[in-house]
């Protein structure tokens, strides 16, 4: 469930201003002098902070926590699929009994192109949202918790950094069954509310029903679970709104591989987008996971432009040689 804040430019601007002010000014690099990585150690190139610092969770309920990284200019960290190389940011939570943490809700990444490779990740800053849940049986009161972040951070060269933070969890009495989203984050922490709303807006969403985004996988020569390799196409189409660019960024899916060379560009015509992604499915490489084609389809170029989660299960063959969700 997302906080209901509509894209409010004032709130977004406030969030951006806050994030900028927390970024420490760096020493200016002299032109012509190669940047020495020893100027800032790997653990200083990205500064991790948590919002809110005191997390209020109702018994049986949940709350959003934002893990922010303020990243040194020109460096970047990686998305859940880093691309040609790199490793994703990893979070490890140490939580009191009865509290659990969900998966990272990754915001739409940028595409980094160097002469050597194409990768996906985040420069300047990123906010990673995680939902903390409290069980029905937990007692109320304050508890301490901690989080460990590890990341690979690169410019032309790469370093491995990380940080530990402790924080407080305040478990409050159960809320009413019809509690609104805004009850999850204490209204008194408006900075947290604004920041969470800002980053939530950048997380790709499952395509709403009314958008009629089509996603399907076709196997022109049919699909065989016992084949070494099946060649297919992931076809995506939908309304493009005011955008003229569209591209698909794949996930790292065991058993399904996507073309080399970065995102797959699509085309936009008459307000509609179409992307065709050649895929190769090797059931033997699935490592026990369900076969699927997955990733995000991104309109426009900015991190704040719309992006949608794509996931098409790939299963036993159907009569027409194609599978659709």
């Amino acid at each position, binding site marked *: 469930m997302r906080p209901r804040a509509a894209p409010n430019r004032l709130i977004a601007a406030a969030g951006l201003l806050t994030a900028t002010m927390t970024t420490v000014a760096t020493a200016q690099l002299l032109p012509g002098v190669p940047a020495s990585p020893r100027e800032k150690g790997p653990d200083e190139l990205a500064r991790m902070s948590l919002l809110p610092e005191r997390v209020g969770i109702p018994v049986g309920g949940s709350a959003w926590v934002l893990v922010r990284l303020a990243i040194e200019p020109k460096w970047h960290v990686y998305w859940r699929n880093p691309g040609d190389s790199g490793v994703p940011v990893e979070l490890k939570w140490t939580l009191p009994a009865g509290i659990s943490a969900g998966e990272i809700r990754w915001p739409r990444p940028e595409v980094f192109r160097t002469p050597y490779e194409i990768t996906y990740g985040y420069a300047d800053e990123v906010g990673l949202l995680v939902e903390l849940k409290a069980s029905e049986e937990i007692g109320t009161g304050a508890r301490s918790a901690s989080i460990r972040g590890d990341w690979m951070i690169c410019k032309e060269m790469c370093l*491995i950094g990380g940080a530990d933070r402790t924080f407080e969890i305040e478990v409050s009495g159960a809320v009413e069954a019809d509690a609104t989203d805004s009850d999850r984050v204490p209204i008194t922490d408006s900075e947290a509310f604004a920041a969470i709303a800002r980053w939530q807006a950048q997380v790709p969403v499952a395509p709403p029903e009314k958008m009629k985004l089509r996603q399907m996988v076709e196997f022109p020569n049919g699909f065989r679970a016992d084949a070494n390799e099946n060649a297919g196409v992931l076809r995506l189409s939908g309304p493009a709104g005011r955008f003229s660019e569209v591209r698909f960024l794949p996930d790292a899916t065991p058993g399904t591989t996507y073309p080399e060379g970065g995102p797959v560009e699509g085309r936009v015509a008459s307000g509609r987008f179409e992307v065709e992604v050649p895929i190769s499915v090797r059931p033997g490489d699935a490592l026990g996971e369900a076969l699927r084609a997955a990733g995000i389809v991104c309109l426009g170029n900015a991190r704040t432009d719309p992006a949608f989660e794509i996931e098409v299960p790939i299963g036993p063959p159907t009569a027409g040689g194609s599978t659709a969700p």
Partner: protein
Amino acid sequence: MHVKTRLSRRLAIAAAAACCVSLAHAGLVDDVAAKAEVGKPAPAFTLTDTGGTTHNLADFKGKTVVLEWFSPYCPWSGGESRGSVHRNGKVKSLVEKMKAVDPNVVYVLVNSTHQGRPEKEIARDSDAVLATTGVKLPILMDYDGTVGKMYGAKVTPHLYVIDGEGVLRYQGAFDSDRNSTDGSNYVLEAVTAIKNGETPSTASTRPYGCGVKYKR
């Protein structure tokens, strides 16, 4: 709402990325189509190591050969970092365990790093890493990147295990958990399987590391 399952440590890097899709578009490493494919004969090569000795893959027929793509600058490979498989003891441990299973196993490093640096500098920096770790391994210099591209080596470390018949049996990650020593070592598993006359159960995984800085 779609929830992306956080891949467990084991799977996070074990997502299969075998040979590139034949319908590949605009690959950056596109001069030479990668020929290395698990189940097929590994591409032949002759390379000289930093000590001046020449190594030809064909000379090792009858022995299991492990190739590790290496860079002295990458924090997962030879760089100064807790993630470096050389500096955190993982390579030493692997070599010891492999030799216990198969005393004849051959383990060599291949360095396709160019990055606009002089070859001598890369060779010197590579030797310096191994001098620190105390594990003697030949460092085969592939400065123009030909062999790396033939093998489709994308990152350091990227591992390949070739059996005594010259067939590639495993390619991919060093192990299943880049952040600890708790994971499975796919290389050891492959070497053990080959020694027992079996096919490695994990043939292909997605390697973790820094991109190989090929010559442009």
